[in-house]
């Protein structure tokens, strides 16, 4: 099997030094994707010919003009819920079998303009609803560190592809932890930018007030470079921030002196947290302290209500967003239905998987007459309290540090029959979506041979401080450099 690819920054240096070509990198990515496919199932589709053509174009430009961005000529992967013109965008759902996107997501337009080369689409939980990448019509993705375990979800394909060295960088979406929890389970960095930082135009909507696109990579440096490329105002997404693209890569000074990191006592004392995970995160905190940051205890009293609040709001929004899949304009249509209502019902019932139906039903229920105030409106009130908790904690700190997930990667099949237990895997991640804060997960240790991730949550608009802290941590540690040994 071909060797794993290095980080995007390493590949950039090799390209600039004339030691390799984009064509060679794309061939390696494609070969490794194919060689690992039977075991990992990380990709649902490759775009080999288009990627080869784009690599040749990038190679032809090199030497004649400056690189368009740090990602010029670098192979990357995208989650299967991000629209690319002329490519399928299936969301791992039967209901979108055969669908070909008529347009590019803004994120894709920006990546193309920057010279990045998409080699394939990655597996996910259907419509990004899940925490294990098992709710997929393509079957589960496996964790490169232990093939009997889940890579997390819902961006599990993107996480596995980066962790296995197939691509240095992939993008996912994060509605309640779907970038950070798989990053934690596979020993890589995953960044959920603040709400509105990256345009959602061309991201298939799950819960519009929570969804955000972001990068997964082995280093904070690569995540910073990726965010700088894809961020910035987009008139096609009215919720995108009216700000120019970030310049996070410049902020990676390696120095975190003077930064205050808050440790929420509720998270570290969490009864449901694996003690080995807590220990690794506490050691991570001490490492940041050695790097010059100061630690202080803070309190987030309402985070114990976050999972309940999240599952009421995200399902309500999902029930509305997924009404568009009706068999009329695109997607699967049930055959020989006698009338329109029957066609809707059968198309949707045959096309959606069990978890998607569960969430549509729950969302419809909490929005329905008689329940709206008790569930949906109440959840929105708690959401406001959560926002206040985070604002108060971040008034005295530059970032908060907590576990990403209460556990390491769990075995495949362990939770598919127990949705509530699956939801509790998101206990530490959903708050950043509910509050809109930027958050990232980075590797901080191992427990029983499996990676452990810690999470940094920042102030609104301040991804740069999170990336600076994560980069400083990675300059002092080697957790992110370790690689899983994939059986041949």
């Amino acid at each position: 099997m071909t060797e794993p690819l290095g980080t995007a920054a390493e590949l950039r240096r090799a390209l600039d030094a004339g030691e390799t070509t984009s064509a060679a990198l794309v061939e390696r990515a494609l070969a490794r994707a194919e060689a690992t496919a039977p075991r990992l199932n990380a990709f649902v589709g490759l775009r080999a010919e288009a990627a080869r053509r784009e690599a040749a174009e990038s190679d032809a430009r090199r030497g004649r003009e400056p690189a368009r961005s740090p990602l010029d000529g670098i192979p990357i992967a995208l989650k299967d819920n991000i629209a690319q013109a002329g490519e399928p965008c299936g969301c791992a759902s039967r209901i979108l079998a055969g669908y070909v996107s008529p347009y590019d997501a803004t994120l894709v337009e920006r990546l193309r303009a920057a010279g990045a080369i998409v080699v394939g689409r990655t597996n996910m939980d259907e419509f990004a609803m899940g925490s294990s990448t098992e709710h997929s019509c393509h079957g589960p993705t496996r964790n490169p560190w232990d093939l009997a375990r889940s890579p997390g979800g819902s961006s599990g394909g993107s996480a596995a592809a980066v962790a296995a060295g197939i691509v240095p960088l992939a993008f996912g979406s994060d509605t309640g932890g779907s970038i950070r929890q798989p990053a934690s389970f596979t020993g890589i960095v995953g960044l959920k930018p603040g709400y509105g930082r990256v345009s959602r135009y061309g991201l298939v909507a799950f819960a519009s007030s929570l969804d955000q696109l972001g990068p997964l990579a082995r280093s904070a440096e690569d995540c910073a470079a990726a965010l700088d490329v894809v961020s910035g105002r987009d008139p096609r997404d009215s919720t995108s921030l009216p700000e120019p693209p970030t310049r996070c890569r410049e902020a990676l000074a390696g120095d975190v002196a003077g930064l205050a990191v808050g440790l929420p006592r509720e998270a570290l004392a969490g009864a449901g947290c694996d003690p080995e995970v807590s220990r690794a995160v506490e050691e991570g905190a001490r490492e940041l302290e050695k790097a010059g940051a100061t630690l202080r205890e803070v309190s987030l009293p309402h985070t114990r209500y976050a999972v309940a609040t999240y599952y009421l709001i995200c399902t309500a929004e999902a029930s509305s967003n997924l009404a568009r899949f009706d068999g009329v304009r695109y997607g699967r249509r049930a055959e020989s239905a006698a009338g329109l209502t029957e066609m809707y019902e059968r198309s949707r019932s045959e096309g959606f998987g069990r978890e998607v139906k569960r969430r549509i039903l729950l969302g419809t229920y909490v929005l329905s007459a008689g329940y709206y105030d008790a569930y949906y409106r109440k959840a929105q009130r708690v959401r406001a309290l959560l926002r206040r908790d985070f604002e108060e904690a971040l008034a005295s700190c530059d970032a908060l540090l907590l576990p990403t997930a209460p556990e390491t990667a769990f075995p495949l099949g362990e939770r598919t029959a127990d949705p509530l237990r699956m939801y509790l895997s998101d206990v530490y991640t959903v708050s950043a979506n509910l509050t809109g804060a930027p958050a990232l997960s980075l590797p901080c240790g191992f427990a029983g041979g499996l990676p452990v991730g810690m999470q940094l949550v920042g102030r609104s608009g301040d991804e740069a401080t999170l990336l600076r802290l994560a980069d400083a941590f990675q300059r002092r540690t080697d957790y992110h450099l370790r690689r899983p040994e994939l059986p041949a």
Partner: protein
Amino acid sequence: MSRIGRAEVERIGHLARLRLEPEEADALARDLDAILGYVAELEALDTGGAPPASESPVTPLREDRAAASLPLERALANAPASDGSAFLVPPVLEGEDEG
């Protein structure tokens, strides 16, 4: 105490245009009952005068300017049934012919 049963799940299924087999509706009722039991912890929380978070955002507006939209043939390319200018659906009223 059960919060939701099969009949209620089937009623909501109809609102959401999901047709559920009896066993499926039973299984989903059990799942939803467990989830609603869990989220009930919010009932006891006094949120004081906190206004719902959803009622505070301001919708940003942009200038109303004409721009090209998706060309017809591309908009129709994924249609399960079309006549080249419109999407076709089964009869809206019972007894009518398709088209």
